[in-house]
């Protein structure tokens, strides 16, 4: 059985995924998780969870293609470049008119 191990580095911090251990049962998972992730003072707490007990969700369908809900892929770079160019030409236009005066 595979067990997922989460560890907390310092009190008050969130537990983060550390890795996994293969173990015959909960007892073995407890001992192996301590050995791999806990006994050198690197963790203040561990969560050891059978992988089967984890509810995994990875089917985020987007059937109506509502990608406007997402912020990725928005071509900011091009817009920025254009804005900079406009700013530069406005500045030089100012300089020119100032020279004339």
């Amino acid at each position: 059985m595979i067990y997922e191990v989460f560890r907390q580095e310092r009190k008050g911090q969130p537990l983060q995924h550390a890795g996994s251990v293969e173990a015959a049962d909960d007892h073995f998972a407890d001992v192996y998780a301590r050995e791999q992730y806990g006994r050198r003072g690197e963790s203040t707490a561990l969560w050891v969870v059978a992988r089967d007990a984890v509810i995994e969700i990875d089917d985020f369908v987007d059937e109506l293609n509502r990608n406007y809900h997402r912020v990725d892929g928005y071509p900011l770079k091009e817009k920025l470049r254009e804005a900079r160019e406009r700013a530069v030409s406005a500045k030089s236009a100012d300089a020119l008119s100032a020279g004339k005066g």
Partner: protein
Amino acid sequence: MDEKVQSTLLEIADDELILGWRDSEWTGIAPLLEEDVAFSSIAQNEIGHARALYELVARERGTTADELAFDRSPDEYRCAPIVELRLLDWAQTIARHYLYEEADAIRLERLKQSDDPEVAGLAAKIDREEAYHRIHAQMWFDRLQGEARFAAALDELRPQAAALLDSELRGEHTSELPDLWEEMTMVRRSQPAGTKW
């Protein structure tokens, strides 16, 4: 520190060194990766305990831990025969581990009561690491309990475990010790005479 205490410490140190060596023979080939890491770590701890014990005795005898560990001849070692066995069967290895930890817990309790604060302190320190070993041994015991192969291994090895707690029973070494000694001291014996480390 009187001679009696020194020889007790030396017996335990020899047990820990030789068992650590034997256990480390599973490094890389234990039943699964997690066990490989756990058992190798136990082997390393045992050798660390041996070193600490040798250091105490070495100071009393005006020598060094390395000299005690490696410069005696095989028949001068005081280890119990059970730790010398080269066990190629995992069930037997776990049976010995379980029996050893059982006995080790008893003798560490005795040492913790020592009048010598240094001895008692070291025993307490060692015991804190041994707690992990006992959890590990117990976990395997619970899992393998009822398996015929494990039961047979326990029956076979249990009589030999008695020597771990009784100096009188530490007599003859097994025929396996000289080979192990050759292997264990090879690097040290290969240094040119007169070199100092």
